[in-house]
């Protein structure tokens, strides 16, 4: 990697800039100024999550950064209490709205952890992933993924779904 804008390629051909600018623990105002600063200085990959409660600030920072949307790689994540088909679709819509964009470059399941209905982890992960595939097919997401998953969790997705690479 020679530059912060060099990319890795995902299996579906989508390019991922090699360094992400994370925004965990940043309140809205800090996220706004630091995301703008990061973009103005060359970062193209911005990482947030609904659980960080700063998507509005990140979205404002993205607009302030002054780089065209298609040059950025914007990532958000589904919180633990939004597993399930309908809820996942709703959470994604909320992230899109907070960020003020009409698509995300990647959307990840934040944790393989449920807040309620722990007995339904396998079913719920599958329902969530079904929603992710739907959002991907609808063009709202350019790539889908997971976070903090172990091999067995990914194996579960592999056994049940098409998009697992």
């Amino acid at each position: 990697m020679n530059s912060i804008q060099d990319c890795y390629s995902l299996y579906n051909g989508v390019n991922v800039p090699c360094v992400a600018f994370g925004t965990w623990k940043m309140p809205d105002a800090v996220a706004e100024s630091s995301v703008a600063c990061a973009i103005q200085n060359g970062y193209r990959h911005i990482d947030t999550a609904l659980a960080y409660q700063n998507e509005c600030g990140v979205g404002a920072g993205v607009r302030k950064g002054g780089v065209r949307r298609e040059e950025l790689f914007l990532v958000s994540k589904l919180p633990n209490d939004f597993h399930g088909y309908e809820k996942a679709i709703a959470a994604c819509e909320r992230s899109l709205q907070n960020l003020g964009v009409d698509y995300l470059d990647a959307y990840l399941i934040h944790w393989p952890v449920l807040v309620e209905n722990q007995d339904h982890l396998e079913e719920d992960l599958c329902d969530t992933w079904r929603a992710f595939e739907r959002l991907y097919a609808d063009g709202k997401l350019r790539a889908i993924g997971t976070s903090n998953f172990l091999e067995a969790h990914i194996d579960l997705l592999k056994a049940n779904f098409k998009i697992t690479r």
Partner: protein
Amino acid sequence: MINQVQLHPQNPQEEMIAYCKQNHILTEAWSPLIQGQAFKRELLIETAEKYGVSVAQLCIRWIFQKALCPCRSPQHPSESKITRIFSDFPFPTRIWKKSRLCVPTAQLAIRRMSHARTRLWDFKKMNSKCTRMSEILCFACIFCAEIAFFRRI
């Protein structure tokens, strides 16, 4: 597909990296600087000195050498802190040998629990203690559950 996990020299996640590569999944590394603890780790300090780089450069370079994507959230981000990474590029040479550091962190705790109990989904029990979606709470639950589990045996 992407899998973003806690990954740094103290939690090298070699099995996970191999698994993801095999399955055409890009691994992203959160907490590449061990949430700031990297600056206190003697081995990292010594290694960085040996190669004339900063501890942060060393950690980021270590991740690139594994062909992974670091995701760093600078705390109290100032412009100089945000732009500091540019002094790290390019990354032409390999300087890092296999990490000698390895202590349990969140991801390892999850892994150990699911291995120890053989059934992966058993760790949903500990989730029942999670009342909020906060990651910090999840961590706390994981560790509490782990301690409780190891006390039982």
